[in-house]
């Protein structure tokens, strides 16, 4: 066991280990596991690569089935098919409305669960748990059965009501997770300084939970735009983007679907990256500002305590 073979900072097992075994272990850690993981990640992304590649396919007709050659034709005219464009418009409209309605409801629910202890809390948690774990087909058939029994006409409104239903739980748990991790004594400080409940909420609580609300809202939007099974049951005559795609499988998927799928993908990735990076940047800026304040008034915190 030569000391040179031990890399700095790596905890070594006590006791003698033959070099070969250690080398094998290191190869598992530094080669096999990462390679395997990257292969799985590539496998996960493979259909996305194919979707993007075939959006540049020079398809002679409507059916995008094999590679014919490179073209930008469909990127220049992504909205050429009126049915497709209409379905996309409907999907986006429902997703925006569902997000706008869900975000405050889910945020307040998440705040209640994360911030307070109350009777029935366990039941509410279990309700969210069931809602998230339930197979979509059960949610879809249940809603369809209820709407039909009430003679509620299916279409835009039934889809919107359904989408709000399956988004609430996701916003609530996202906000709850954030609230649990926060130091809520700031709220007490605000009310100690004379702020009433509403002012405390507006100036202290809301800014603190806002990142989680935004993350939950983005998740809602993504879930809503993507939903197929529940929408399939409650749609009536309306056709959303996923429904259009599934309907088109019978006659062949036009390349515009690939173009629009790619655009949605890029928009989603953009928002995900922005929402991941923003809090870090903001945190850094705030930390800097605090440091500056502290340098300017060195004993500002200490004096009144003496």
């Amino acid at each position, binding site marked *: 066991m030569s000391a040179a073979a031990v890399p700095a900072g790596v905890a070594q*097992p*006590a006791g003698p280990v033959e070099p070969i075994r250690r080398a094998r*272990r290191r190869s598992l*850690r530094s080669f096999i*596991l990462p390679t395997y*993981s990257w292969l*799985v990640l590539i*496998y*996960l*992304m493979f*259909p*996305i690569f*194919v*979707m993007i590649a075939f959006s540049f396919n020079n398809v002679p007709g409507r059916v995008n*089935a*094999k*590679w014919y050659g490179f073209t930008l034709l469909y990127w220049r005219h992504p909205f050429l098919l009126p049915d497709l464009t209409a379905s996309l418009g409907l999907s986006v409209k429902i997703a925006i409305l569902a997000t706008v309605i869900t975000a405050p*409801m889910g945020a*307040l629910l998440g705040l209640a669960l994360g911030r307070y202890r*109350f009777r029935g809390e366990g039941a*509410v948690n*279990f*309700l*969210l*748990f*069931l*809602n998230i*774990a*339930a*197979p*979509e*087909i*059960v*949610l879809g*058939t*249940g*809603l369809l*059965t*209820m709407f*039909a*029994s009430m003679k509620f006409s299916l279409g835009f409104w039934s889809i919107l*009501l359904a989408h709000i239903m399956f988004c*609430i739980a996701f916003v609530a748990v*996202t906000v*709850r*997770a954030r609230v649990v991790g926060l130091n809520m004594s700031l709220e007490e400080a605000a009310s*100690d300084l004379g702020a009433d409940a509403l002012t405390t909420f507006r100036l202290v609580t809301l800014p603190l939970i806002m990142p989680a609300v935004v993350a939950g809202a983005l998740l809602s939007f993504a879930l809503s735009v*993507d939903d*197929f*099974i529940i929408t*399939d*049951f409650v749609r009536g005559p309306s056709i959303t983007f*996923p429904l259009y*795609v*599934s309907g088109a*499988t019978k006659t062949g998927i036009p390349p515009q679907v690939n173009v629009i*799928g790619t655009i949605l*993908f890029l928009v989603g*990735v953009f928002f995900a*990256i922005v929402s991941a990076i923003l809090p870090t940047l903001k945190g850094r800026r705030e930390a800097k500002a605090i440091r500056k304040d502290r340098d300017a008034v060195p004993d500002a915190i200490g004096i009144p305590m003496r």
Partner: protein
Amino acid sequence: MSTSGVPSVDEIVKSGIPVFGGEPVRRKPNRRKKAVPYGLASSGVLWLLVFFVLPSFYMLYVSLSSGLLGTQQFTWQWSNYTSQITEFQSQLIRSLYYATVVTALTLVVAYPLAYWIAFYGGRRKNTYLLLLLLPFFVSFIIRTVEWSFILADNGFVLGTLKNWGLLPKSFKVLSTATAVIAGMAYNFLPFTALPVYVALERIDPKLLEAGKDLYANPATVFRKVIWPLSLPGVFAAFLLTFVPAVGDYVNSALLGGLHTTMIGQIIQSRYLNLDYPRGAALSFLLMAVLLIGGIAYAKALGTEDVLETAAR
């Protein structure tokens, strides 16, 4: 210490501003404070009660009715359940079988990935998680359609291999059980990897060091420390994969054939044919199984892991 301009102690107490070192002043009536969480939770809970819980009762009610939509009547028609179970026994068993294989497969594939991200992800952990979630930014219907396109009998993969003579001309993947299971495994993989990751990420690295210090080799550390601590995540993964997989009908519809029909497709066709009572019976059966499994799971392990996974 009272000088002009500074309020007296009495005034301060009356105004409700707490004084340093004094007794904390209670200002708000307790009952109003108790109502706050109910007020906050009410709109969301109400929505879930009306559009999630209530429909289940409608489903139970209709599943005990007879007749097609429009002429439906409540008749305590228990035979809806018994007849559907016997008639679609093979589809039910197939659904459970596919879901079991898919769950086992995704766990085996996802566990090492989750392990790698949790323990060796380092600073790039969030990037890897983003990559893991990347498929969600493409509609799952498009992803499934892309697989049917990739695996097509004469598509760019199988067609090429056949042209090179590496595969017999009659070889096919689509419309076989393999295609359906592979499609589902693909779609559920992130749902399996995430909860396992959440559980692994929580493990204190000091425990692993402690294991090493106690002369455990890495295999033993894994067996005695990591694996038991990751079990809640594994069970959450099981729940989040198995339950939706049983009810899935998209993969079998797009990738499968005549002999891969799953129970979800039967339920869908029942509803399309306006035979709501029997469709509701099958669907309610599925929900009852979930409810029992869900309650057992929540009682044993709590709802925390699943909710935490969903929060990511």
